[in-house]
């Protein structure tokens, strides 16, 4: 537990240090902080594997009064993922020549975002989540505005929707507190009944969270905000920030909601997930802009998460939890890689459109390779992390003939994601009449973009321990 706390506190302290001291070379401090946080996160993960879930009542007060932190395999894994992605992204921001202009304000905000995310993963308290969600929202919007004037409109829409979603969430939380007199997830789980108040509260909370997670059909703000943000920021937002509400949604429906409500709701969630896969994939195939394509792919891939969550609730199958969280981790890594590669390509060509990619195999082979490798995991090619997750998801569908329509949906979605990934990659192989300026610098940034893509393929090698970890949890 203490290791997890260290992983959370270090970014907060580093942010304050950077703000107070204002060193000339901030990047080193930030990278060191991220490394320390990553090491602490790994220790937390190891301690969970050794001694199982741990719980901590903040301030030492009794359970209904105190805010409770809990370290479980799932959130330990998420804390490690968060730290890994933050480390890669800050290294990218430090080494990429296209990120020079955003630097000064980027570092403290990224650190605060990191700390807030870890705080959210650890917390098990409905109101504390409201505060951390606000933190995430404000940090994310401030980061989006770093892109300058052109991003302000998207940032404002993002902020207003995020505030609206928070208030919807808060109303639901207050109703639950009014009905059951506690804000702790574990206590609520033992109390809830399927009555009208609970139903309304859960629906309000879910609506707020789905809006924040950009789950279809509440995704409309995401493509604009994520594609107009600076590259490292897009990666952080798409990989991590949208996953936070999904985490709360999962805890809420799988733990708190009584099964009379969860089973029918699961069906609808799964249906919405299917809608996200179709519409998001289709939009990604249609858009002319590179970063928008990647952003729509996030909408589609979040659909897998929602599908897994919905089916988990609908069939009451705990095995799907592993599928859900492996999806989240695999997508986080792959999407980081895609956004970093796409951003690096876009910055060096100076064009947003997809057809500016022509001839990229010659000028920026590493970045394009990173995009393709990460895309392979999104499609679910074996042996990537995406493949394992998809395999876990599709297994229970294939067993029973009544579930085959869902399997068909997943297959169509796979084809769609293959279509948009190849759309990008094939452009890169085309001959270009105008040879893009080959740049020597920025090599390290391209390799950094490749790193998470390699990690997601390495996940397959470690699939055995990962699945064991998830089993520990569902048992």
């Amino acid at each position, binding site marked *: 537990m203490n290791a997890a706390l260290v992983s959370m506190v270090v970014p907060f302290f580093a942010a304050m240090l950077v703000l107070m001291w204002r060193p000339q070379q901030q990047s080193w401090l930030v990278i060191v902080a991220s490394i320390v946080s990553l090491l602490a996160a790994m220790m937390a993960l190891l301690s969970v594997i050794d001694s199982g879930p741990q719980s901590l009542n903040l301030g030492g007060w009794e359970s209904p009064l105190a805010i409770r932190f809990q370290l479980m395999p799932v959130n330990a894994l998420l804390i490690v993922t968060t730290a890994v992605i933050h480390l890669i992204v800050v290294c990218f921001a430090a080494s990429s020549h296209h990120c020079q202009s955003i630097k000064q304000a980027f570092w403290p905000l990224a650190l605060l975002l990191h700390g807030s995310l870890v705080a959210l993963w650890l917390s098990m308290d409905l109101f504390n989540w409201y505060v951390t969600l606000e933190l995430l929202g404000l940090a994310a919007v401030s980061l989006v505005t770093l892109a300058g004037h052109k991003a*302000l409109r998207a940032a*404002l829409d993002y902020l207003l929707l995020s505030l609206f979603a928070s*208030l919807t969430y808060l109303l639901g939380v207050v109703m639950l507190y009014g009905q059951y007199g506690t804000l702790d997830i574990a206590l609520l789980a033992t109390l809830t009944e399927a009555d009208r108040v609970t139903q309304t509260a859960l629906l309000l909370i879910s609506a707020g969270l789905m809006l924040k997670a950009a789950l279809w059909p509440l995704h409309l703000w995401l493509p604009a905000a994520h594609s107009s943000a600076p590259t490292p920021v897009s990666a952080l937002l798409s990989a991590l920030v949208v996953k936070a509400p999904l985490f709360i949604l999962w805890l809420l429906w799988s733990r708190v909601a009584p099964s009379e409500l969860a089973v029918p709701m699961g069906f609808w969630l799964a249906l919405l997930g299917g809608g996200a896969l179709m519409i998001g994939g289709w939009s990604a195939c249609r858009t002319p802009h590179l970063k928008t394509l990647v952003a729509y792919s996030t909408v589609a891939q979040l659909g897998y998460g929602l599908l897994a969550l919905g089916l988990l609730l609908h069939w009451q199958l705990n095995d799907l939890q592993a599928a859900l969280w492996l999806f989240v981790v695999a997508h986080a890594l792959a999407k980081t890689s895609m956004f970093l590669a796409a951003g690096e390509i876009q910055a060096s060509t100076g064009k947003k459109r997809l057809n500016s990619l022509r001839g990229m195999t010659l000028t920026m082979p590493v970045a394009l390779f990173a995009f393709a490798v990460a895309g392979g995991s999104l499609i679910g090619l074996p042996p990537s992390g995406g493949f394992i997750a998809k395999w876990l998801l599709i297994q229970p569908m294939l067993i029973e003939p009544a579930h085959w329509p869902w399997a068909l949906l997943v297959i169509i979605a796979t084809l769609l994601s293959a279509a948009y990934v190849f759309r990008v990659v094939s452009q890169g192989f085309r001959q270009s009449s105008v040879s893009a300026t080959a740049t020597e610098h920025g090599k390290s940034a391209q390799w950094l973009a490749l790193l998470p893509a390699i990690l997601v393929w390495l996940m397959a090698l470690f699939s055995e321990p990962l699945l064991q970890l998830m089993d520990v949890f569902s048992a």
Partner: protein
Amino acid sequence: MTLSLQLFLASGGILWLTGLYGLWRNSDPIRRIISLNIMGSGVFLVMVTLARRETSTDPVLHALVVTGLVVAVSATAFALRLAVASQQEKR
């Protein structure tokens, strides 16, 4: 007592919806921010009313409202600045 509690609870819900309606209806960012504040006030009204159900008031809910108020004012301040900045850009 119960009747007036119900009255305040209902008013809180209606305030929340009024804010939602204002958010839908208005396109000016400042007015949308005001609508969000009205939504927030509705939630706070529900909270404060719930705190009064017993003979001694519930300090936890009051503390949560104080937290909520500060969060609301910070977000409002940032949103207003952002609104001004995004409109200046249009000129």
